């Protein structure tokens, strides 16, 4: 069978860099399959839409989607990661690895992470983004995390005042999204989408989401480390702004649209690709790094 197939190989050179990709598309209620070597999406009303997967960073698959074995293979070959997403938040991440991918970046990440000194240096670089005017010399990781905690609580308070929205603190109960207030619901959803985008960027640049420098123990520490760099504007500011706009009624389409506009507006993938390379020190070995 396979011998008779006309097979055009996807090579690394033919794929766009992470920074040039479209950040994500969200699909629900339909089927992803392959036809003529390209990925097609068939929605619940039988519309067929071809997806240029090599130009997409992530496919977020919502409820009611099915995907064929071959479609996963093709997406992987085109370096497009796939995340399975629940009704309102991300449940599972998956990423494919190219047979041709190299592990040079992963090795560098591991080297930085196992050395206490180097690891603290990377963590400090991350905190410098958030505390540009503060002297972090001699501060331990714990102290910096404490500072960050205070800062985030202050940001919540500041945004609540800025947009005139009531705020009783961050609450997130897994699987019970609707029990929290609208601001918290938007925060949960946008955080999840941000994790998904960053997770696939990290994967496609050849790093691991599992080796973090500030966070540890959680499933995707490196992704949480990176997400903290962008959350203030992308998630927190947006959540309070939207709470006021939506007047108490959660609307996931509006949330998704506003989030996407901010992601594209701030060039998140360009920023993330540059920040990851900078944090890990120097030029990246894989595509996506500059």
């Amino acid at each position: 069978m396979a011998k008779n197939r006309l097979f055009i190989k996807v090579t690394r050179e033919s794929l766009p860099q992470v920074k040039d990709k479209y950040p994500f598309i969200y699909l629900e209620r339909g089927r992803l399959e392959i036809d003529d070597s390209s990925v097609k999406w068939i929605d619940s009303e039988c519309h067929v839409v071809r997806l240029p997967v090599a130009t997409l960073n992530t496919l977020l698959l919502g409820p009611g989607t099915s995907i064929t074995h071959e479609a996963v293979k093709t997406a992987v070959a085109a370096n497009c990661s796939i995340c399975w997403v629940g009704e309102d938040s991300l449940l599972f991440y998956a990423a494919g690895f190219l047979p041709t991918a190299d592990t040079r970046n992963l090795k560098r990440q591991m080297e930085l992470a196992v050395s206490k000194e180097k690891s603290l240096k990377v963590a400090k670089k991350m905190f410098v983004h958030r505390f540009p005017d503060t002297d972090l010399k001699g501060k331990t990781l714990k102290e910096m995390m404490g500072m960050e905690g205070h800062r985030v609580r202050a940001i919540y308070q500041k945004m609540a005042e800025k947009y005139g929205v009531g705020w009783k603190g961050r609450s997130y109960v897994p699987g019970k999204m609707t029990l929290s207030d609208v601001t918290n619901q938007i925060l949960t959803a946008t955080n999840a989408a941000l994790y998904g985008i960053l997770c696939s960027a990290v994967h496609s640049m050849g790093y691991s989401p599992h080796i973090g420098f500030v966070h540890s123990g959680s499933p995707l520490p490196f992704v949480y480390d990176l997400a903290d760099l962008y959350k203030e504007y992308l998630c927190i500011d947006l959540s309070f702004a939207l709470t006021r706009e939506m007047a108490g009624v959660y609307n996931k389409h509006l949330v998704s649209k506003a989030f996407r506009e901010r992601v594209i507006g701030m060039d998140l993938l360009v920023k993330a690709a540059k920040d990851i390379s900078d944090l890990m020190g120097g030029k990246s070995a894989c595509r996506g790094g500059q």
Partner: protein
Amino acid sequence: MLVVVANKLPPAVRGRMKLWFVEPRANIFVSGIKDSVAATVIEYLYKHCPEESGIVMFQSISKPPGYTIRSIGATDKQMTEISGLQLVVEKLVGAEKQDIVFS
């Protein structure tokens, strides 16, 4: 870059188009004009072309996904938008042919 593909253009418009574009094939126009000029040209086309012209315009932009597609009049395929990305709806094999207009 702006690429304009048309079924049939009014002769005056077609002549005027060549101020900005080269026409490597009949009714296919290619130009390297920048965004602000492209906006003016697109506005001009909307103003002076009837629906029968069947125009599709492809403009490259600096933000992802790097392109926008616009059209005037009926075309064969319908456009759709998923998560802000412009995509083309293809007919399902065996499905009834529909008259589809995209705006």
